[in-house]
């Protein structure tokens, strides 16, 4: 328990200090959101229409951006060896890293997401749903990204494989997350948020095991 907290605290510190992690992801998110209106023109109705989709895609990508180095840096400099030998299972380690990643990116992305939704002219009710959806869905993104990062740790062409692994798995998050907002906009009932919550729960519960298997596999490389 305390070991878990220790790793979370340290990964948070590294994410905040390095700049590479958290700040880059947030900056990236803001960048997408700023560039899109430049790209498609200042049509406010159109923007509101696509806001949820664009913000979700941007959030997922921003989170993934920092995920590919989730284990990589520790692997390269030898820290991962030391962690594997510490009194902490690899499953717990993976879980801690996923939690730290979510705290340093998923959570702030949700906050910034709310601001951007307003800037895109999304109505209040829809904005509320978007924020809720981001809050529920981003943990799944961190978890799934963690699996991908662990599996491709020592692979020379890891970068190529990563999107193939992660993309099919995060697609449901985007679909349900943006779907929930679309339903509110159209005044429909929808179970999207429930699906999202179920998917997210499943992902967070299972990811540590899959990620630990990936790390174990790659330490012997």
């Amino acid at each position: 328990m305390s070991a878990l907290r220790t790793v979370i605290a340290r990964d948070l510190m590294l994410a905040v200090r390095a700049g590479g992690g958290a700040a880059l992801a947030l900056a990236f998110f803001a960048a997408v959101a700023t560039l899109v209106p430049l790209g498609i023109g200042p049509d406010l109705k159109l923007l509101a229409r696509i806001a949820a989709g664009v913000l979700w895609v941007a959030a997922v990508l921003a989170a993934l951006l920092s995920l590919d180095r989730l284990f990589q840096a520790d692997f390269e400099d030898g820290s991962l060896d030391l962690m594997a030998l510490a009194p902490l299972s690899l499953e717990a380690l993976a879980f801690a890293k996923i939690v730290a990643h979510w705290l340093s990116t998923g959570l702030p992305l949700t906050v910034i997401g709310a601001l951007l939704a307003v800037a895109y002219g999304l109505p209040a009710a829809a904005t509320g749903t978007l924020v809720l959806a981001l809050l529920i869905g981003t943990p799944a993104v961190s978890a799934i990204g963690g699996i991908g990062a662990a599996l491709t740790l020592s692979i020379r062409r890891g970068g190529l494989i990563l999107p193939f692994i992660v993309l099919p798995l995060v697609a449901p998050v985007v679909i349900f997350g943006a779907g929930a907002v679309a339903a509110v906009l159209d005044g429909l009932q929808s179970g999207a948020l429930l699906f999202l919550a179920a998917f997210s729960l499943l992902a967070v519960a299972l990811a540590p095991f899959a990620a630990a298997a990936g790390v174990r596999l790659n330490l012997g490389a």
Partner: protein
Amino acid sequence: MTFALAIERLALTRGHRRLFAGLDLSLRAGDLLSLTGPNGAGKTSLLRVIAGLLAPTEGIVRIRTDSGEAVDGEDRARLVGWLGDRDAVKPQLDVGEQLRFWAKLYGTPAPEPEAFGLKPQLPGQYLSSGQKRRLALARLVLTGRKLWLLDEPLAALDDDGKALLAGKLTAHCAAGGIAIAATHDPLGVDGLTLRLGDA
């Protein structure tokens, strides 16, 4: 019963190259083993196998703890203190922060950086090679583990650092620990030697 390490018929092949085979070794509390051999002989690989980080092609590694319990497989990890060939120093954290992190993770008290000739406030980014190595040594000591595995511990250390290392090794073995160090230079402490495959 005392702490002991037994290696039986250990073999390792990496990418079609057989690094060692039929390796038998038994060490008891207090033993210090220097692992030598030419570059690429498999010293680092052997240390990883002993730590359980790398699966051997054949053979077993077993540790008997003080209480007489025989430990092999993954549980071995809980007995190993590791000083790898890379320093595992984070540029973004200062010396004190790094030591405190590892101490908390291993559930042991953090040592004074000054005892290893380090200033606690120095950021990892600015450490010289020798200072990084000293940090790694401090981290090894703080684990409190009984089986030390060291990969080229002398690298980048000055004379004072080498004496420090020799002192730590002596104390560790005197306290009933075992240490195995892959090295190209004499450690400055009496002990056994195992030379790996001359190609």
